[in-house]
């Protein structure tokens, strides 16, 4: 048997307020519809990325050559660090769903524990992304010569790393998409951490215990899993393909 609404019958007439439609609470429905629209935003960004990449396929930087750093290790291990980031985010999704489960049993301390672990996982992910950006922006010691616009004049310059205007590793548009899409995702993660923290404080204060249910935890849980879901796609399209 499911713990959710599957076993309840939806009334035939839900217009005019009162009864929430589709067998789910209004709060969850609002979150779901927001997530659908947010998913379309990310779809748009990734679609644009896909078209550009398809167009410049022969000149696209190999992500394995760009992202190969690992903390406290001088050598190069392609994709290892981003694999670790993915693990951290999946793990924090698991602790989130465990918090929701504990909420369904009204266990305040368990909810608080899993929420806290989720927040820590989110902070670790944002920190990892900052480090990834740092490496991409600072680039290699050798650098590369690129024809770039300086004071209104195109000239060949030795450059290191990437920003929105030039990219040591290849096409500038690769860097543009990287900064925009992982930045937009990273800001979602950051927002999620802030929201999770607010809900965590409420859990610890006993707000939801008094209310008799932990619906708010389930709602922020939906948002948090969505952030993980987007990362699964970003991971595939930026790092694997």
């Amino acid at each position: 048997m499911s713990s959710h609404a599957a076993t309840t019958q939806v009334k035939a007439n839900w217009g005019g307020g009162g009864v929430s439609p589709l067998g789910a609470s209004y709060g969850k429905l609002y979150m779901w519809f927001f997530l659908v629209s947010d998913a379309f935003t990310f779809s748009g960004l990734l679609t644009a990325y896909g078209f550009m990449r398809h167009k410049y396929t022969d000149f696209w930087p190999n992500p394995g050559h760009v992202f190969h750093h690992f903390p406290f290790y001088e050598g190069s291990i392609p994709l290892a660090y981003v694999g670790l980031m993915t693990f951290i985010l999946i793990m924090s999704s698991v602790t989130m769903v465990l918090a929701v489960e504990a909420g369904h049993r009204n266990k305040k301390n368990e909810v608080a524990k899993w929420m806290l672990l989720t927040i820590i996982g989110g902070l670790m992910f944002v920190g990892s992304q900052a480090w990834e950006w740092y490496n991409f922006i600072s680039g290699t010691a050798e650098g590369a010569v690129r024809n770039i616009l300086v004071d209104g004049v195109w000239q060949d310059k030795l450059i290191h790393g990437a920003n929105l205007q030039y990219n040591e590793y290849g096409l500038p548009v690769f860097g543009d998409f990287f900064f925009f899409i992982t930045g937009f995702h990273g800001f979602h993660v950051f927002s999620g951490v802030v929201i999770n923290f607010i809900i965590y404080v409420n859990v610890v204060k006993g707000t939801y215990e008094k209310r008799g249910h932990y619906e708010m935890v389930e709602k922020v849980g939906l948002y948090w899993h969505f952030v993980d879901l987007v990362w699964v796609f970003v991971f595939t399209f930026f790092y694997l393909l």
Partner: protein
Amino acid sequence: MEFNDGYPSYETMAIHDEEHGKHIRKVIWKVFWIMLGVTLVELLVGFKAESWGLGKVFLQFFFIGLTIVKAAYIVLSFMHLGDEVKALKWTLLGPFIVLVLYLIFMVDVGEGNYAKARRYVMDKNVTDAPHHAPAGNNEGASEHH
């Protein structure tokens, strides 16, 4: 807010007992191990793709397929969409079916045929890598060298 309409409140919809919770937790960890396994396989294949001589089209289907597997586990299991009523599932997932159809058509008909054939003409500068030449220089560039 109180609604006295006889419809079950959130509490009665969502609360479960200790034993049921144990079962749910077991499922959560099972999903975790599946997701971790899939991610490790993706990384291994991504790491070894060149030395194993795997084709580009194969890799695209392989990675996108596994991504959809992971996405399905997140949405249906972690977000509990699998437990919601059918109408909600269709309401939320339906729009993405349209999006996927659009993308398939765009890749196959639009970008796939038109831009790929034209890209050398449009972007001769790009073929002069590593130099990224100014935008004004590409007039008269009519063929790929």
